[in-house]
């Protein structure tokens, strides 16, 4: 799988480099700390929704309702906390529960009735947005208090010492676990990869983290929103690769019939993935509401869903199921948001921006399709 990751990650990293150089040359503000900070803030919400999309893409399915669900969850949270004066924690919990329930419902419709997932979730796309508009009523907009917990989420910056501590802790933990794994493999008589192959990614990520902290430190520091998003990406990746449930998601995505014959409850796995997707969409919706300090009729609407799906695919999650990692959401949203942000800086009309994003998406899907064709097991 490690080999696959490098193949999958190379085009998107190259693409990011091209984007950085191009916009950096065209506009001196693009790579400035303040703009990069804005970029990080802009990508967290849609990136989180994209993370949910990765969960269903791993099964070879799609969730078109994720945008609407994100908006609906944000509205539910806002109404409960602002209009009904529930404690914020309770309002957030109920909003996440709403997402989970919607995902479970859609998953059950998909598995029990055998409806194609894109139809079930297309109905969701329309229906949940309808419910959002109904709940918002005539007012159309509800503001969140600027000093409240939710608004503060996207207006909090980590002090430098905390950023460095978290980064150092993560790198130390990763190194320690890697060293331990190598020792355990050696004692078990299993082949151990060359030390540099294990150390190189750790060193690379350490350098990346240090660079990010220094760069963002020149502005307001590392935004809490970025830490939240990246933590979710890492936690989900670990969960997918190191738990029984995660393994079974990959199995069902790779060959559902094989999984079924091996005694895996395929439908339960599918419902779980849809529930996870919608829950992450709800988280993304809350983060978006936090950025705006409000919810309105276009919450979760316009191009959010399409960007979330495009990000997952651009980042390297396969549309055909069974292949991909959560880092696809992080890298993909970075690509899309950089293009958006760079073109806004250059005052390029959004018409051009859409066409460029479409081009990037097509390239990403072409790479995915070619990788699938080229793989020895493509016959299936």
């Amino acid at each position, binding site marked *: 799988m490690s080999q696959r990751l490098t193949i999958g990650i190379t085009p998107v990293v190259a693409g990011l480099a091209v984007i950085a150089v191009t916009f950096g040359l065209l506009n001196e503000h693009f790579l400035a700390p303040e703009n990069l900070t804005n970029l990080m803030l802009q990508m967290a919400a849609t990136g989180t929704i994209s993370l949910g999309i990765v969960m269903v893409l791993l099964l070879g399915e799609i969730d078109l309702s994720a945008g609407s669900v994100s908006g609906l969850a944000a509205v539910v949270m806002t109404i409960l906390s602002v209009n009904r004066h529930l404690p914020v924690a309770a309002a957030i919990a109920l909003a996440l529960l709403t997402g989970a329930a919607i995902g479970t419902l859609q998953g059950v419709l998909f598995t029990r009735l055998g409806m194609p997932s894109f139809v079930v979730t297309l109905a969701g796309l329309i229906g949940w947005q309808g419910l959002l508009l109904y709940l918002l009523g005539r007012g159309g907009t509800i503001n969140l208090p600027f000093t409240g917990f939710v608004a503060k989420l996207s207006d909090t910056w980590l002090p430098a010492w905390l950023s460095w501590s978290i980064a150092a802790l993560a790198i130390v933990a990763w190194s320690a676990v890697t060293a331990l794994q190598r020792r355990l493999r050696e004692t078990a008589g299993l*082949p151990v990869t060359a030390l540099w192959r294990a150390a190189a990614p750790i060193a690379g990520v350490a350098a990346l983290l240090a660079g990010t902290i220094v760069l963002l430190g020149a502005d307001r520091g590392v935004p809490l929103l970025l830490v939240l998003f990246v933590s979710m990406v890492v936690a989900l990746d670990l969960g997918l690769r190191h*738990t029984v449930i995660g393994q079974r998601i990959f199995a069902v995505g*790779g060959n559902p019939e*094989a999984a079924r*014959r091996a005694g895996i409850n395929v439908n339960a796995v599918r419902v779980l993935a849809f529930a996870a997707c919608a829950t992450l969409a709800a988280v993304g919706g809350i983060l978006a509401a936090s950025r705006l300090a409000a919810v309105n009729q276009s919450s979760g609407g316009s191009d959010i869903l399409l960007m979330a799906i495009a990000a997952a695919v651009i980042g390297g999650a396969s549309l055909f199921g*069974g292949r991909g990692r959560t880092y696809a959401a992080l890298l993909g949203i970075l690509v899309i948001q950089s293009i958006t942000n760079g073109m806004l800086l250059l005052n390029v009309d959004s018409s051009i921006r859409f066409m460029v994003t479409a081009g990037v998406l097509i390239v990403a899907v072409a790479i995915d399709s070619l990788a699938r064709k080229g793989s*020895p097991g493509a016959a299936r």
Partner: protein
Amino acid sequence: MVLQVRDISKRYGAVQALQNVRLDLAAGEVTALVGDNGAGKSTLIKVIAGVVAADHGTISFEGRPVRINRPHDAQSLGIATVYQDLALCENLNVVANLFLGAEQHHGGLLRHIHMERTAHELLTSLDVRIPDIRQPVATLSGGQRQSVAIARALLGQPKLVVLDEPTASLGVEQTAQVLALIRRLRERGLAVLLISHNLADVLAVSDRITVLRLGRNAGDYRTDDADQDTIVAAITGARA
């Protein structure tokens, strides 16, 4: 006898797929089940594997009469079936495929190293050579995949292994690998039921041959005493 099948009949609408079929499988023996297309071979192994219910007849396992109503019943008796479509997940590595649905874990956390070591030991004991068992199955040859599928069947400590056309899609060299693996199953004292169209393979690896024709028994032979012409005659019914 590990498995004794007596008087099994199965009708699909107007088609009598099996009629009073008898089959004996002994430990440490490879029994080949041969017959023309439509002879009832697949139906018989589905009955043994619990995928299809027979209309009547009895099955005894290690001398005791048993009922096999579901695939799970067969598995818990110790009957492992490797179907022709191997049911592997191409995107997962060899270790993950071996433990598919039976992952070893501590509180939900996969025991990667433990599983990899078990997988390594199992494959080594079967003399199956795969350079890196952490590679996705998609990168393996047909013979290696067949070997992985057979090895997976062995993880459940079965007493009988049923192989449906294991060499059908393989080239000469890979067929030789798989036949060698079948011999190793016999050396381990397992009862093996081998379904095959390829008489050369059957004659090369089996101890006994059971012929089905039009859903009925059409002959039992010791492989040492049989030659290709005799078997072909039994399969086609050409013998007077």
